[in-house]
């Protein structure tokens, strides 16, 4: 029987906004505001307040058929730490010739479609990874580490350059952990499983980092 480790998947991880446009005029109960509005060219607006811990998101706001459409202004402005159900406020924008304006704040509640996808859900709380064929745990960054497998994943192996099969575990950057801590967290579970046949130890992430995905490639 194989030994496994369990990687807890965050059900509502704090994370970033998607890079694609978000329509907030039809978001139901969570949406209010805008007041008197004038269509025009896009106007930039940072997320000024939020009910959660999210920070850093900045949108360009336009009006399409009376509906506000928000687009992240740059890939570096997707923010971090936002959760489904948090409330975000965009401050009102004064009228200016040719530019989109609204004289009351836009307030909307974050839905899952607005944030980057995560693997976890109420019915998918863990990823199981067999450890019998694990070669090593390699650090990638403060938000990712690889469990490398003793299997090839290359067309033409050349010395020291062929990639092997691996599981990539990705966590959100808020709450933050470190590359070394993430590597050690995952290795600790594998070491525990290797020393105890038929056990299924769970990975305990430093700082309660939240796992977004586990991908085999």
């Amino acid at each position: 029987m194989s030994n496994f480790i369990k990687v807890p998947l965050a059900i509502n991880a704090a994370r970033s906004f998607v890079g694609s446009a978000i329509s907030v005029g039809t978001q139901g109960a969570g949406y209010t505001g805008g007041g008197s509005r004038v269509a025009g060219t896009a106007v930039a607006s940072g997320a000024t307040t939020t009910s959660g811990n999210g920070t850093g998101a900045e949108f360009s706001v336009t009006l399409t058929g009376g509906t506000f459409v928000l687009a992240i202004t740059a890939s570096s402005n997707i923010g971090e730490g936002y959760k489904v159900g948090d409330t975000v406020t965009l401050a009102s924008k004064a009228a200016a010739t040719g530019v989109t304006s609204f004289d009351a704040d836009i307030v909307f509640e974050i839905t899952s479609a607005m944030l980057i996808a995560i693997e976890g859900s109420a019915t998918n709380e863990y990823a199981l990874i067999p450890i019998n064929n694990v070669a090593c745990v390699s650090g990638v960054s403060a938000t990712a580490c690889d469990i490398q497998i003793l299997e090839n994943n290359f067309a033409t192996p050349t010395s020291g350059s062929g990639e092997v099969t691996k599981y990539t575990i990705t966590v959100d950057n808020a709450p933050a952990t470190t590359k070394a801590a993430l590597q050690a967290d995952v290795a600790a579970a594998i070491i525990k499983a290797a020393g105890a046949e038929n056990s299924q130890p769970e990975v305990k992430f430093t700082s309660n980092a939240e796992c977004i995905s586990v991908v085999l490639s």
Partner: protein
Amino acid sequence: MIKLPIISSGPTALQPRFTCLNAEDVYAVSKAGSPADVIHVHYAKLAAASDTAPLYLRASIDYTNGTSAVITDQDIENLKDLIKSANQNPSSVPEFELIGARDATVSTITDYQVVDVQIKAEEPYSSTV
């Protein structure tokens, strides 16, 4: 399986946490780098019982932190012995530590801790255990 201390992973440099490395299917261990800061662990593994040729893989344990070589010939021999021991006791996960770590100070101990470990494909290594 063996475990290796990782640099900057614990509450202090003297209390490192660990990464792990498979000790099965190893046929050679060698040192590399100039100065010698990398240990190569060479694997030959049959992907399936019906295969006639094994996969050749190489784990690179990187100690490149300080400016001087930290890996000695005796370290290689010690790691070979530890791998043999780990295979004789499958549920054990012994720790591998470089010889120099025993005499290291608080300020130099990190030179003897692993920066990273990576495994890649390779062509067969010429030496055997």
